[in-house]
Structures are given as structure tokens and as C-alpha cells.
């Protein structure tokens, strides 16, 4: 993992956390933040394509499947209950009472799975960031020594 990827992942997490709390941001901002978070998460998924799963990594594969499915349900249902993004495009969606409970459940599953993902992956990202910081400290020590 590169340092730039680790920093991007932290930014994705920050945007997601903001989008995951509509009670704090208000619904209209939540809708736009949610779309932004989806685009960033999609970029993260594509960038991490190598680590989606494979032989001997069943647990990781299952977790990633749950994450992707919850993300897909959350985004589609979110668009279908949208009261700001869709109308801003001159559109509206019927079926609010079908999609709204789905959106709430998918959001909770996504959050829970994401916390597990975070616990599993954070050490690797922190190691990359720490390694870089260690290198920088060593470099400055060398310069001071001169």
C-alpha cells in the first residue's frame, strides 16, 4: 500500500462518516455527501481490486461481498428516496415506502461491516504512514549529523 492510497482512504472514511450521520448534516446535504462518498468508495474499491479476495481468504471475500452489497443497496435506495438530488435534476421517484426501510437497513449493515473492515485494514495503513514518518525522521537525523 502506498502512502497516497492510505491518505486517500482516510479522506474516504471522513466523507463517509459525515454522510452516515444525516441527523448532524441535514437531509439535503446528506444526499449530496452520500453520492460523493459513493464515488470515493467506488474509487477505493477499484484501487484495492487486488485485495478483494482470493484463495485462502474466504473471510475477506465474504466481508467484501457484504460491504459491496450493502453499498449497492444503500446507494440505489438512497437515490430512490431522494428529495433533493432527484428534484434538482427535474425527476422524482415513486415507491418511497418500499425503498426507505431498505435504505435504513442497508446503511446499518454497511456501517457495521465497515467497522470490521476498518479494524482489519487499519494496521496496514497505519504501518505505511508510520514507516514514512520513521524514514523522514531518520533522514533529518542524518542531515543534522552532517
Amino acid at each position: 500500500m502506498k502512502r497516497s492510497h492510505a491518505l486517500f482512504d482516510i479522506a474516504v472514511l471522513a466523507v463517509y462518516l459525515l454522510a452516515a450521520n444525516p441527523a448532524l448534516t441535514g437531509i439535503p446535504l446528506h444526499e449530496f455527501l452520500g453520492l460523493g462518498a459513493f464515488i470515493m468508495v467506488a474509487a477505493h474499491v477499484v484501487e484495492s481490486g487486488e485485495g478483494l479476495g482470493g484463495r485462502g481468504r474466504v473471510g475477506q471475500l465474504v466481508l467484501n461481498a457484504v460491504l459491496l452489497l450493502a453499498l449497492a443497496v444503500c446507494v440505489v435506495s438512497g437515490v430512490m428516496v431522494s428529495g433533493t438530488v432527484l428534484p434538482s435534476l427535474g425527476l422524482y421517484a415513486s415507491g418511497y415506502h418500499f425503498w426507505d426501510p431498505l435504505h435504513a437497513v442497508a446503511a446499518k449493515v454497511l456501517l457495521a461491516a465497515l467497522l470490521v473492515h476498518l479494524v482489519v485494514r487499519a494496521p496496514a495503513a497505519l504501518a505505511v504512514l508510520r514507516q514514512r514518518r520513521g524514514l523522514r525522521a531518520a533522514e533529518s537525523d542524518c542531515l543534522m549529523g552532517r
Partner: protein
Amino acid sequence: MLKKLVATAVLAALVGAVAMVGFAAAPSTAIQPIAADSPCPAAGCASDACHGFEAVPEPDGAHEMVCPEAGCASTECHGWGSLIERYHQASDMSLNVWILMPVALVLGLWLLVRRMGRGARRTAGEEEACYEA
């Protein structure tokens, strides 16, 4: 590169599949352009003076609401409360906060304990070095 393409395809396919399953499960749902006679997606009301999300009227004997379960339209709909209190509103300080708060608390305490432990170790090391000197 191939795995990245596969990841992109999987994500796009999942979003498409969820939309298709959803539209199949609830055939009445659709995305349509807003027209003058478009009904409110929650209440089914097609008044040309839409009150918007911020000012849903109290039951007044004139406005009707269509029940999403039974399809019944009534001026005394028992689901009016959910329209006023829940539609287009964050449900509450909800589970997200109840999950995120303890996680933030545990992480914060863990970082604090780590930092304090490191500080204590450093102080002890410096003292030892002084004694040795």
C-alpha cells in the same frame, strides 16, 4: 489491472442488480420527470400547491394521504403521523451515532493510554541514562 477492471465490473453489476431486483419486487416504483400533475411520492397527493417537506399540513379533512400498504386514500389516514414526523427526515440520532460514539470513545482511550505509556517509558529511560552517566 485485470483485478481492478473486475472490481469495477462487480460494483457496477451489483448496483444494476439491486435496482433490477428492487423494481421487480415493487413494480409500481419508478423514476419519472416532475410534471404539474406529479403526485407526492410519500402521500400520493397531487395538489398543484405542494407544501414541500418542511411544512406538511396537519390532518385537515381536506388533504388525503394514500396508504402505501393498503392503497386506501383517506382524509383521516392513520399513517399521517409518519408523514409529518419521518418523511424526508433523519429518523433520530439513530444507530449510527450509537455505534460511532462507543467506537470513537474506545479508540480515543486506546490512543491516550498508548501515548501515556510511551511517555512514561521515555521518562524512565531518561532517568536510567542519567543514573548511568
